[in-house]
């Protein structure tokens, strides 16, 4: 029972992390059709921002680093949109995706040139890495916080998308951008907001990723975002509820694999999971909530 509780906490927090990232991907995709391969490098950027502020400005209090992490990612996401993705707005999806892919390589290598390959440590708050004991179950604080923050962030996002004008414009833009523009909504604002939200969600994830790892290196964003991509595909690419469901499914699957697999096979975990996803997609190509891919034939 305790073991079960511990593992489900594991699964929830991991799934939450994937959901945050997958949501960020899905929001940008739904509004402007961009598959943002540079999403992971936004995490890396946030990590380096925290590291530089901690090391360069001598801020020892890790509590002050948390807003730095989130805010820097938001600003960086909006910066990328203006500099890199504006020129390819309206281009075919392949062009946007490859641009993002190139941007991702650029960011990684800039970090490599100026900061180096070695991981840099970032101070974390002590209470984040401590444990809470409930009854006889020890649960890391970071897991509880991560789950809670994910739930709150998703709730806020739902309210934002349903209650505010810009939120409604974003939902409408996901359906038909040109009509939204005809209604007098500025596409620039909608897209900038989408990137800001995507950056905010990634920023939250950054804080937790760093609390777990305690260090930042140029390639740290790759694995979490690959998982987020897979989560988004599981849920149905471009669907927001799908992103959340996909993230949770993936988190649960990973933790289950960890429990089931013998130690000698543990290294194969991701291979098993991705293969399972492949089989799922064979049966249901559109993912859990996605729309059927169109091959122009009768179904």
């Amino acid at each position, binding site marked *: 029972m305790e073991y079960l509780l511990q593992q489900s906490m594991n699964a929830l927090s991991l799934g939450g992390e994937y959901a945050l990232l997958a949501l960020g991907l899905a929001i940008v995709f739904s509004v402007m059709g961009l598959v943002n391969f540079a999403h992971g490098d936004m995490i890396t950027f946030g990590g380096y921002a925290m590291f530089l502020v901690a090391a360069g400005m001598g801020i020892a209090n890790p509590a002050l680093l948390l807003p730095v992490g989130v805010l820097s990612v938001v600003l960086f996401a909006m910066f990328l949109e203006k500099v890199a993705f504006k020129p390819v707005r309206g281009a075919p999806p392949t062009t946007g995706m490859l*641009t993002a892919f190139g941007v991702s390589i650029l960011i990684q*290598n800039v970090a490599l040139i100026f900061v180096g390959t070695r991981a840099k440590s970032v101070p974390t708050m002590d209470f984040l890495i401590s444990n809470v004991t409930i009854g006889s179950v020890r649960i890391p604080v970071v897991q509880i916080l991560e789950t809670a923050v994910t739930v709150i962030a998703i709730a806020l996002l739902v309210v934002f998308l349903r209650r505010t004008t810009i939120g409604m414009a974003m939902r409408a833009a996901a359906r038909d951008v040109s009509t939204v523009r005809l209604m007098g909504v500025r596409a620039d604002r909608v897209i900038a907001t989408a990137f800001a939200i995507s950056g905010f969600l990634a920023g939250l994830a950054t804080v937790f990723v760093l609390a777990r790892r305690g260090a930042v290196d140029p390639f740290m964003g790759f694995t979490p975002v690959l998982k987020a991509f897979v989560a988004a595909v599981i849920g149905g690419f471009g669907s927001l509820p799908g992103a959340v469901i996909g993230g949770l499914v993936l988190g649960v699957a990973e933790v289950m694999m960890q429990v089931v697999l013998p130690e000698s096979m543990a290294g194969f975990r991701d291979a098993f999971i991705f293969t399972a996803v492949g089989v799922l997609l*064979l049966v249901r190509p559109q993912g859990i909530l996605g729309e059927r891919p169109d091959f122009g034939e009768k179904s």
Partner: protein
Amino acid sequence: MMIERRALVGAVVLGLCIAVAGLLVWGFAAPYHQRLFFTFLVNLIAVVGLQVFMGNSDITHFGHVGFMGISAYVTAILATPVAVKRSALATAPFGVNTFELSPLVAVLFAILITLAVAFLVGLMMVRQAGIAATIATVAFLVIVHVVVMNWVDLTRGPRAFYGIPPKATIGWAVATAFGAIVLARAFRDSRWGLQLRASSEDVAAASAVGVPIRKLRFAAWMLSAFIMAVAGALFTLFVGTISPKSFYFDLTFLTIAMLILGGMHSVTGAVVGCVIVTAGVETMRFLESGPVFAGAKLPEMFGLTGFFLGLVIVLSMAFRPSGLLGSDEIDDIWHRRRLRKAGVEVS
């Protein structure tokens, strides 16, 4: 498959350019440059293989290097002498350390196994819409990498696999590159290639006129995997030592940048991109090591090569999304020039 004579001539001319370069390198170049040229040829074959799928179906493919990796490792496992394997793969399963095959037979097996894997992955791939398919290709590359890294008994895991007989020669590589170019052109300009390219521009229209989109996509996928398998086997039999890192993101970035710069819809573009990016990467490697330039010692800049590749991709996409050559092949360019000389208006 019927293809136009003009396309065939174009492919052969392109292949002959490579062959002439090969003869010159074989005859006159220093060993270091011979190695460089061989690597260039392997990359060229890989880029042409990538073009077959990406250029015709318009689905971005990040998993092509995975096929190279599978083929490379199968070749290595089968062709390495028993004497080496007895110590290097002491605990190998399936008794692979008790026999050795001649390199040619090993390559045949490698191609067959790679094609079998491509078949299974392809079943899933052709059912996906473009973006999900692309992400699936990334996941495929990661699967291959994870398996090679963790199946230590069979692949030595992250450690180098050594002792593979270095039987491949420049001549073989040139012949293979020639073959890959002709094959890619033959597919691209065949009826199937044309239909597939049409379907990538307008799915509904293509399927309305009866194009079997999934079948053709599958065919392109398998042909691409075949060419990648040959590239992987060739590479292994030349360098003699491989590791999982040889077939991961570095090579993916490199080949993608080459194809995009040249223009992914054109085989000629693939070759042109390969030439330019190879020259650029070699320059960057030189600068990266911190050379002495005009009396001043430049700083070491590890990461410059990657930076260059990223820049190539981003700038291509911003300024010339269809690449240097767009959809033009070498013979299209001649043809237009001839028409223009004859006084015909061409757009």
